[in-house]
């Protein structure tokens, strides 16, 4: 339990008449600062740079480029019919990489729109391709890194709180992290998960990428709140609002948050960013937002801003951008080839893992189905197994 103070037990309640005025608690009186280190024009205060060595600073760049190249390649292969669908992360690279760069292997991570953190934790691009091809082994690979992708928006926050609860009981040197989007903050599950973390003082870190859109809905319509960060206060937990296009600021914010979270003070971070591409490849954003707005955010490119910083620091000469891209493209090519090696599976796969031990009725259904497929090969006129998307 946290040692927070509450006046709820004070009897009678301490109050005053406000000099005849009824006083409101209002977000109008709330100042929510936005943490930023490198401003959009590339200027920064040397003293504010987080404590990262040159190699780490270059790593941040490489991961951001990885994220961008991966999204581009995935959208391309989806268009060629090699994936079911895909949600691009273009525009959110600073937000995604700056935050994930703070996580330790013993931390748990449940993400919304953020794929590269899985690679940073040891899963492969192949695993991610399998995931988007609707092959269950994708999530299995992420689970080996104590990571998962949440599809049902907001549903993962109570899970993340529960994992944090276990860490608390274990006195573990780890944090449980949920990535969520602006839309997820409207779900009941999100409220309940964050509230539980605040109530029990759990080592849970909530990283909200406010990318401005939940499919077609802009954030201004998602909530009456001016910011998402302020919502954390209602659960009695501290929040940080950060410029999600500034990778150093995101890193700095989440690194600071992680330190606090580890000690049982949950933190909510709102990272203000923008989804430059469609929600998924099935979505047509021209129906709900105009080019001018998108263009503005194209010009607020997180990778460009970081490049300006690296140049100012004299680190750009250490970076061979073309070679990095070439490496990532090669990694993707290999991952795609490896994913294409994934063999068609037998129908027993459908029944595997539903329970630890297959109940008799399920075993019967499986046997019957296997026999039927042998007896009636015409079933395959209706069935296409699609391990290659």
């Amino acid at each position, binding site marked *: 339990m946290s040692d927070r103070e509450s006046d709820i037990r004070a009897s009678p309640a301490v109050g005053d008449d406000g000099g005849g005025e009824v006083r409101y608690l209002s977000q109008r009186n709330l100042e929510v600062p936005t943490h930023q280190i490198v401003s959009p024009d590339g200027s920064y205060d040397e003293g504010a740079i987080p404590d990262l060595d040159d190699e780490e600073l270059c790593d941040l760049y490489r991961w951001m480029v990885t994220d961008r190249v991966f999204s581009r390649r995935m959208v391309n292969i989806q268009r060629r019919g090699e994936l*079911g669908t895909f949600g691009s992360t273009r525009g959110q690279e600073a937000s995604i990489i700056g935050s994930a760069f703070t996580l330790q292997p013993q931390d748990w991570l449940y993400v919304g729109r953020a794929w590269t953190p899985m690679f940073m934790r040891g899963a492969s691009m192949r695993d991610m391709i399998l995931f988007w*091809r609707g092959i269950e082994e994708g999530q299995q690979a992420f689970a080996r890194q104590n990571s998962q992708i949440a599809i049902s928006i907001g549903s993962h926050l109570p899970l993340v709180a529960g994992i944090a609860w276990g860490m608390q009981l274990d006195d573990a040197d780890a944090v449980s992290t949920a990535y969520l989007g602006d839309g997820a903050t409207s779900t009941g599950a999100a409220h309940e998960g964050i509230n539980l973390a605040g109530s029990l003082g759990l080592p849970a870190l909530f990283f909200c990428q406010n990318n401005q859109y939940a*499919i077609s809905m802009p954030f201004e319509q*998602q909530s009456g709140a001016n910011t998402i960060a302020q919502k954390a206060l209602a659960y009695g937990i501290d929040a940080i609002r950060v410029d999600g296009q500034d990778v150093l600021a995101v890193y700095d914010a989440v690194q600071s948050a992680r330190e606090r979270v580890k000690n049982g003070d949950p933190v909510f971070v709102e990272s203000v960013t923008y989804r430059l591409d469609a929600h998924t490849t099935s979505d047509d954003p021209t129906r709900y937002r105009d080019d001018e707005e998108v263009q503005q955010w194209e010009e607020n490119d997180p990778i460009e801003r970081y490049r300006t910083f690296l140049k100012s620091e004299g680190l750009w000469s250490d970076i061979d951008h073309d070679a990095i891209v070439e490496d990532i493209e090669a990694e993707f090519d290999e991952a795609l080839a490896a994913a294409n090696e994934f063999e068609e599976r037998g*129908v027993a796969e459908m029944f595997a893992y539903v329970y630890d031990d297959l109940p008799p009725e*399920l075993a019967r*259904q499986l046997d019957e189905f296997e026999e039927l497929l042998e007896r*009636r090969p015409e079933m395959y006129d209706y069935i296409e197994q*699609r391990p290659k998307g």
Partner: protein
Amino acid sequence: MTMQATIVQAVNDALHTEMERDDRVVVFGEDVAESGGVFRATDELLEEFGTDRVVDTPLSEIAIVGGAAGMAMYGYRPVAEIQFSGFLPPAFDQLVTNASRIRWRTRGELSAPMVVRMPYGAGVRALEHHSESLEGAYGHIPGLKVAVPSTPADTKGLLTAAIRDPDPVLFMEPKRIYRSIRDEVPEGEHEVPLGEAAVRREGSELTVVAWGAMMPATLEAVEQSGVDAEVIDLRTISPMDAETIVESVKKTGRCCVVHEGPRTLGVGSEIIARINDEALMYLEAPVERVTGFDTPVPLLSMEDFYFPHPPRIVEGIERALSV
């Protein structure tokens, strides 16, 4: 007068027609207004009826369903959309705890005449939670009606009836066949009563019962089997038109039930119980079931295996005829 329309166009047409007829009808849900719905079921409604009656809501299934119940209690006729049926579960609480029992709780002083529309079922190659058929679970809720159309005309007619119904209706749209069938749909107002099954094909050798996305596969299987089957489209899961099924079984003496949802505690179980209640002595063979498996729907690479395709239905028909 009729027009040619797909199922998703029939949804859109019913919404247009009912919104024109009754200005208490309000449509809301995620992405339904500005972008016209992810399947375009609510396309052009915003332009025609304006921002008061066609509303994009926050990403909040609980608020969408619970809000619809409250708005209905107050006197409006909300038609709420849940984007995919896999996202209804958080709002299950609002259906069970509130919407379905407002009339009962208030001894008829209040009611919740609302519709929750949602695409259900497998077959569109989407991610997890986009493929479920849980009509059995929803049909289990007292006070809630559950309708599942299978043709464009019925889609319009049943949705119209659902909007006009004095009680809450869960309207499950077979997205697998959203656009694959184009058929005649009456223009203007068109109502098909809830709680009445339709005989799609008359026959004497056995009765086959199906609904929603299973209807085309079932009719195809009957065609392939060459059996003189009577095919019943259940259309409404709850309240169930057991009479049509029972009368047919009394005539044929044999029955096969086909559904996409999981087998155990599925709607098929209830249908068999009703047949046992009313027509046991007419049965010449056990009633067969062809259903989805008792597993989650596989992700898209193996999704096709889950659906009860015609050869499985043919086998079910043959089993029902073999005794």
